[in-house]
């Protein structure tokens, strides 16, 4: 990795009501703890960003956003991205008003790609994250875009989709490997290598991290600007401080 490349460590918090939950391959939910406590814990451990994703799409509910998000953002002085069930511009605005910096959309964007354009025109493309769930087609080296927490196949080829969302104004991509999600078997390197040919906005890799070495490996991909981590942090495989120390010692350009 080139020394001047920046790299970010994001903690991904899957939330249901007020709780952090964790699943494997998006199946079988397990409660981990209170979302606001976890966010604060990672903030204090020097995490670079928080990514909240609502597993049950309650973000359309104004009261939920006000009650939960404001509390969850109040003491967190790092950027916060929020996704899960956002369907229109008003919801996005409401979420940003509650302290979030970026909104992530998947399902609604697949159904109506112009929503990305609408959002980026209004709140700026830097605040619009295209959240993508990718699953490899068994037959060949292609990946398809999934929605609804990796449950529903849209049949859209990921390369085509990434071209579309970039053209519509997505400022960042967060790409989750459905097959690796929660498995701790390492990132799906082939997927990101393929994407790096066409990606020209920041891309975050997610799904499959089991050890620090996995992150070192994925960071070699020039197009990957950071990783979103969940189980390894929730279940104390390693701490963010530790992670940063490791990368700092390897002369990476990171915030420490």
């Amino acid at each position, binding site marked *: 990795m080139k020394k001047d490349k920046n790299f970010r460590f994001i903690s991904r918090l899957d939330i249901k009501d007020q709780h952090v939950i964790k699943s494997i391959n998006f199946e079988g939910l397990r409660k981990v703890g209170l979302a606001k406590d976890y966010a604060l814990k990672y903030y204090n451990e020097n995490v670079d960003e928080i990514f909240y994703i609502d597993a049950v799409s309650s973000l359309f509910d104004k009261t939920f956003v006000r009650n939960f998000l404001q509390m969850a953002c109040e003491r967190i*002085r790092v950027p916060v991205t929020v996704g899960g069930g956002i369907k229109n511009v008003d919801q996005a605005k409401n979420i940003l008003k509650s302290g979030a910096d970026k909104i992530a959309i998947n399902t609604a964007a697949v159904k109506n790609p112009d929503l990305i354009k609408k959002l980026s025109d209004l709140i*700026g493309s830097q605040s619009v994250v295209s959240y993508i769930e990718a699953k490899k087609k068994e037959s060949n080296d292609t990946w398809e875009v999934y929605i609804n927490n990796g449950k529903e196949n849209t049949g859209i080829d990921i390369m085509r989709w990434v071209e579309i969302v970039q053209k519509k104004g997505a400022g960042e991509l967060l790409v989750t490997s459905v097959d690796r999600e929660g498995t701790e078997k390492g990132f799906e390197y082939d997927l990101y290598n393929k994407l790096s040919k066409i990606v020209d906005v*920041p891309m975050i890799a997610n799904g499959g991290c089991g050890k620090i070495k996995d992150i070192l490996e994925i960071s070699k991909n020039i197009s990957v*600007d950071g990783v979103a981590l969940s189980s390894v942090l929730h279940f104390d495989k390693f701490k963010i401080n530790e992670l940063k120390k490791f990368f700092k010692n390897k002369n990476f350009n990171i915030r420490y």
Partner: protein
Amino acid sequence: MSLKSFLKIKILTSDIKLKKNYINLIDYGVGNIFSISKSLEYLNFKCNFVKKPSDLIENKKIILPGVGSFPNCKKLLKKNQLNKLLIKEAKKGTPLLGVCIGMQLLMDYSLEIKKTKGLGLIGGFVKKISNDKINKVPNIGWRNVTFKKKFFENKKNFFYFVHSYKIQLDDKSFQTSYIKYGDNIIPTSIQKKNIFGCQFHPEKSGKDGINFLKKFLDE
């Protein structure tokens, strides 16, 4: 009016007029106000949200946030007649801090989307950052900022950035910090007498951000 309610009103007004640690936060319908107000509260300041000119508490510092696009921010400022207020206050000597697009708004004009006039408090304009494969645009993430020594002394300087446009100063001496981003030198904070600006988001920059805000508040 009962004596009790009279006293209550009296106490309330004196609270507003005399409390030393009020800060005017321009609230013109763009996002991000929540986080910055929480940071200011953390620093024991009370936010006075200024939605229209008459909301302003005089002789208190002003913070002008900004997210989204320059033309949209400008439109909303104008709609609420806050642009004239800001120019008047800045010329009067009231300390003013523009954050992100709030800083860009201090300039003469911006080339984002369409050429749009700014407040014209600092000479120069706003233009797009040129990108390459490593240094992408928007510039999102934590960057290690280099400050002029006299301006800000802090151990580490990691600040959070989210932007696609940068300011181009007519007079470089107003620049108080910068980052190198590929071939770009991006001014990351500025000061011209009582007028301050920063491209990064201090309210999202952990401890360093708090220290930066504190510096402005202590000025």
